[in-house]
């Protein structure tokens, strides 16, 4: 085994480029699926709060499916399974426009939406019941009470869980490798097989993942401090 030489990778233009591409892909997938997941989570929550029992059953089924089927299997179902059911035109377009990444974002986004939605729901349920009553007694509409009184508190309560699940989402971007997306883990494996510097390549990738994970966690802690309800113990 050659001596430890991380510069062999960092300075090599080709390897550096591959890794950078990998990082870029990872960030695109992570960000794209996060946005999709958050938006969908709010939609799911709103649907669930309607008085319709069918709506509740549908949302519960959605969450149950996405929490019990492994994420990798979900991605496979999307990329190998559902893609084959798509009309020819769509399949063709996707094939040319980085279809794997699209399916990765959709699969990961839909999956994490279930977790985010549950976090928000727990956040809502942990609010003292008197709050909703006070808002109603003052004459606020349902929407008004949600907007001004309940959701602000729910999001604050749910923040730690949301941050944790955001880190999970970021880590899950590596699963996209199994359906052929050239994200960071995939890039690292390529660099490793070309340069034979397994240890250095893995170390670089690990550090990059760790840095971003820790950044997300610190950002979350900072956000929690800033948004914290003043004076609360």
């Amino acid at each position, binding site marked *: 085994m050659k001596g430890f030489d991380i510069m062999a990778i960092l300075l090599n233009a080709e390897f550096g480029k591959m890794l950078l591409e990998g990082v870029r892909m990872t960030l695109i997938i992570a960000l794209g699926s996060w946005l999709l997941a958050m938006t969908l989570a709010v939609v799911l929550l709103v649907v669930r709060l309607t008085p319709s029992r069918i709506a509740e059953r549908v949302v519960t089924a959605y969450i*149950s*499916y996405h*929490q*019990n*089927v*492994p*994420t*990798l*299997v*979900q991605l*496979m*179902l999307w990329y*190998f*399974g*559902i893609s*084959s*059911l798509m009309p020819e035109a769509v399949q063709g377009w996707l094939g040319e426009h980085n279809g794997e990444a699209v399916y990765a974002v959709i699969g990961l986004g839909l999956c994490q939406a279930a977790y985010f939605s549950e976090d928000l729901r727990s956040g809502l349920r942990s609010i003292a019941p008197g709050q909703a009553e006070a808002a109603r007694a003052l004459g606020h509409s349902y929407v008004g009470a949600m907007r001004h009184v309940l959701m602000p508190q729910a999001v604050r309560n749910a923040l730690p869980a949301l941050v944790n699940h955001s*880190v999970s989402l970021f*880590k*899950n*971007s*590596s*699963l996209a*490798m*199994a359906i052929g997306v050239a994200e960071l*883990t995939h890039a*690292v*494996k390529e660099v490793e097989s070309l340069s034979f510097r*397994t*240890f250095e390549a*893995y170390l670089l*990738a*690990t550090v990059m*993942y*760790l840095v971003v*994970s*820790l950044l997300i*966690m610190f950002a979350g802690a900072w956000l929690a401090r800033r948004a914290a309800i003043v004076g609360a113990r």
Partner: protein
Amino acid sequence: MNSVFEILRDNWLLLLVGQYPNGPLGGIACTLILSVLGIVLAFPLSVLLALARLSHWRLLNWPAGALVYIVRGVPLLMVILWVYFLVPLLIGRNVTGFVTMLCTLVIYEGAYLAEVVRAGIEALPKGQMEAARSLGHSHLGAMRLVILPQALFNMLPSMLSQFVSTIKETTLGYVINVPELTFAANQINNQLLTKPFQVFFILAVIYYVLCWSLTRAATALERRIEAKRAGPRATVAEIRAAGLVQPVAAEP
């Protein structure tokens, strides 16, 4: 729908036990064995890590904390790649994908379980440790006889759901050719080629049934533990019998 039943009928053995006996044990059997072994072996590691994290000695506290943070901050796939690379180096010979996956799960789950155990210990009232120490037990003795038994019992539902997570994590063995269920399903798909949706649909359903039933069991267990902790409560009939509620006019 018919094709789903056809595929199941033709391939159920492959899904259940993989290529066995013409190859290593695979399919659902492999998945379950991997998960059970993974969590059983991770458990003692997690207890040690939790105790280390709770200890006041920085020599124990920091490395344990660092290990937990690193493992939790890195994707499982990266941990698999590391283990795949390091284990043969450390023990001097090649290992099967199964062993690699097992080591990965032990480390990964060990770190996550450590946090579960730590939470369980911290959730106990301080009075427990104080009482044990006042009776003369050493710190470790109190842990072994008083704290851990209670904490672990209370954390059973969380541990059950970590087991469910472990089952879901075994799917990554696919990437290093561990012959577990997901790998088996991909084999079927590569043979058939024309029915990918049905194959992966079956795969999803199998995992769903498996994980959902275990999650239900965990919830039921949690409810029973909560009931035990709340203590006995009088029923409505008993309250009425004690004459504490005035009978009222019948419903008009």
